[in-house]
């Protein structure tokens, strides 16, 4: 049994910070993922470091306003530099982003080392996985009831306030400019022609990403930022085909990862008798796991759905092939299939007659074997066991089979008459096309091999 250790003093603000950071990055990430700019989040989250350091060096102050200014400028500079490298260096966007952000990050690290700003806890380590533990609230009330008071508001740490404001602004940005962001992501040329400058929207988005990054950064670190810019949006994309739903889902998923990952960071190791792990890392991991679950089990795009669909299809094809073969066998046996009697000698499996030369039971992938098809056909009442053990079509089975054979032979007729294929080349194609549903009510009465079209 995993107990959930939640201590208001130790866990409330760190968890709140993690959830707010996850939500702000999650909502903005949608448009990065859709524009295939996922790496841009990576780039900006790394290159805000020199922006922060330079802003600090210039002003010697650590107010949020200065930090945000520095980060936003660094964000825009990243975008401009990426464009420049792309254009002048003639490299692909991914390479341009990679070059720019690694250089800027390195510059930030060097600046920190050289300018000896270590004492203001801006070091490369905390950049990666944040300092959630510094948000602990030592004079916290012991019960939830006591939380509802004005003193609580005073106790809220600066980082959490900044994150809350950022999160609200990011969500407001996406809600208010939803239409504009959508058209700029889908068709930048049209957006500009319609009077919504795609370049302006691009830079606006990047400024918001930079702001979310720097707000999240101090508390939760850049690993979480990068994961949250990509994972919730990518997961949500797999669950829906509507952008509006995708945006809402991405926020829900980000919050889920935030809460789940934070709790798992202490609960899972505790259950295994180990010390708790870094919450930011654990949250990123949960977001990644959610993505894996969506890849496997999404109702519309998931691997399981695809497999099930393929199986259902191959089953249907096997069933179709079985009853069509029975129909053909009956047809060859007697000119009037309604008077078809069970063959005197027992037949374990219906063998296709020599006339349709390539009619065989090929085993399609996904379990559509003839044996299973036969069982399914019996269950559906299309086929019954004959006296000698062979299979005989029932009335409804014969109807279905006649329609199938009709489609097959109509296709053969079409392929020979209209598409100009020689008669001995058309069976394979017709074998595929016969499974498509509709067939015309009237048409030719014989196929290219001279057999009647039922």
């Amino acid at each position, binding site marked *: 049994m995993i107990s959930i250790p939640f201590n208001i003093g130790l866990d409330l603000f760190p968890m709140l910070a993690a959830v707010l950071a996850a939500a702000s990055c999650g909502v903005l990430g949608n448009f990065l993922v*859709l524009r*295939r700019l996922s790496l841009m989040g990576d780039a900006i989250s790394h290159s805000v470091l020199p922006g922060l350091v330079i802003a600090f060096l210039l002003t010697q102050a650590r107010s949020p306003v200065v930090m945000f200014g520095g980060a936003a400028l660094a964000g825009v500079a990243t975008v401009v530099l990426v464009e420049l490298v792309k254009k002048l260096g003639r490299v692909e966007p991914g390479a341009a982003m990679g070059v720019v952000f690694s250089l800027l990050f390195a510059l930030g690290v060097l600046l920190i080392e050289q300018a000896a700003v270590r004492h203001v806890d801006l070091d490369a380590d905390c950049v990666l996985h944040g300092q959630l533990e510094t948000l602990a609230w030592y004079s916290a009330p012991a019960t939830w009831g006591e939380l509802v008071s004005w003193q609580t508001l005073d106790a809220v740490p600066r980082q959490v306030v900044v994150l809350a404001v950022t999160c609200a602004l990011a969500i407001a940005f996406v809600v*208010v*400019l*939803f*239409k*504009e962001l*959508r*058209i700029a*992501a*889908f*068709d930048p*040329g*049209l*957006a500009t*022609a*319609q*009077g*919504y400058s795609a370049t302006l929207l691009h830079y606006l988005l990047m400024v918001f990403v930079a702001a979310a990054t720097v707000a999240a950064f101090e508390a939760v670190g850049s690993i979480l930022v990068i994961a949250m810019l990509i994972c919730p949006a990518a997961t949500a*994309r797999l669950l*829906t*085909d*509507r*952008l509006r739903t*995708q945006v809402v889902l991405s926020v829900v998923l980000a919050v889920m990862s935030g809460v789940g990952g934070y709790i798992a960071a202490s609960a899972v190791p505790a259950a295994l008798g180990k010390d708790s792990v870094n919450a930011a890392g654990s949250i990123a991991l949960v977001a990644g796991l959610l993505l894996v679950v969506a890849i496997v089990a999404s109702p519309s795009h998931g691997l399981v759905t695809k497999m099930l669909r393929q199986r259902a299809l191959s089953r249907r094809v096997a069933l179709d092939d079985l009853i069509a073969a029975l129909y053909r066998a009956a047809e060859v046996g007697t000119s009037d299939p309604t008077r078809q009697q069970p063959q005197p000698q027992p037949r374990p499996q219906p063998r296709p007659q020599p006339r349709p030369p390539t009619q065989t039971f090929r085993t399609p992938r996904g379990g559509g074997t003839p044996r299973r098809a036969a069982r399914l056909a019996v269950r559906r009442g299309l086929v019954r066991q004959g006296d000698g053990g062979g299979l005989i079509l029932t009335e409804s089975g014969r109807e279905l089979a006649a329609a199938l054979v009709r489609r097959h032979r109509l296709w053969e007729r079409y392929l020979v008459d209209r598409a100009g294929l020689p008669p001995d080349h058309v069976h394979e194609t017709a074998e595929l096309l016969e499974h498509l549903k509709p067939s015309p009510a009237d048409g030719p009465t014989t196929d290219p091999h001279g057999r009647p079209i039922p």
Partner: protein
Amino acid sequence: MTAATRQASTTTAATLAARPEHSPESPLSIHAMTVAYHRKPVLWDVDYDAPSNQLIAIVGPNGAGKSTLIKACLGLVPRASGQVEFWGLSYRQARSRIGYVPQRESVDWDFPVSALDVVCMGRYRMIGWCRPVSRRHRQAALACLDRVGMRDYAHRQISQLSGGQQQRVFLARALAQEADLYFMDEPFAGVDAATERAIVDVLRDLRETGKTVVVVHHDLQTVPEYFDHVILLNMRVVAAGPVEAVFTNDNLHKTYGGRLTLLSEAAEAIARAAKGEG
């Protein structure tokens, strides 16, 4: 870039109107336009005045600069030199009256939007910043989908449409813009017969309602049937004018067969020389 273009467009407004060969009534006047990619010229010194209320085809071999001509007019690729005006106005001033149907491959069809969402995008200019798509605009978009025979597919996600259906969605989006001048980049490329008919019907509809349409077209067979006016293009304008006057074997030969003719002339010369010796 914006300041520069604005300045350029105000100066062109003065110069082009003063030129006798360009009329301010023409929906599209191109003067001495040259376009280069990476310093390599793609279009040389294009001069053209589009007649109003006509269906105009741009025809020419691969790499002749057909799409580039359209994109340069719309400012989507930079012009090395020359001026373009629409009814005597700059693109910026005339933008609301101009619709554009890009090539189908220009967007990501996996994008999570429905056909109706895409058509609604054609009306964003009328809707304005920060306001949601109202019912009225959605109805108008549905009517445009209806005109191209795609109303039943309005709520399909766009990746679930066939190529021809996607092309028709693009066409509906252009219709939703309610422009007076349309540019279409290869709308007939790789479409099925039903889509081709739908596009032709829409083109004729547009002409009847007084619009001008400029279409990049690749099928020479259908030019006389579908279009009134034709621009034969091969890096420069070989000939332009009414189809019956301009769309001649001679002009087509000049457009498509320049190099071929030179080679066949050379081959004949060699043959003559060989005969003379023998």
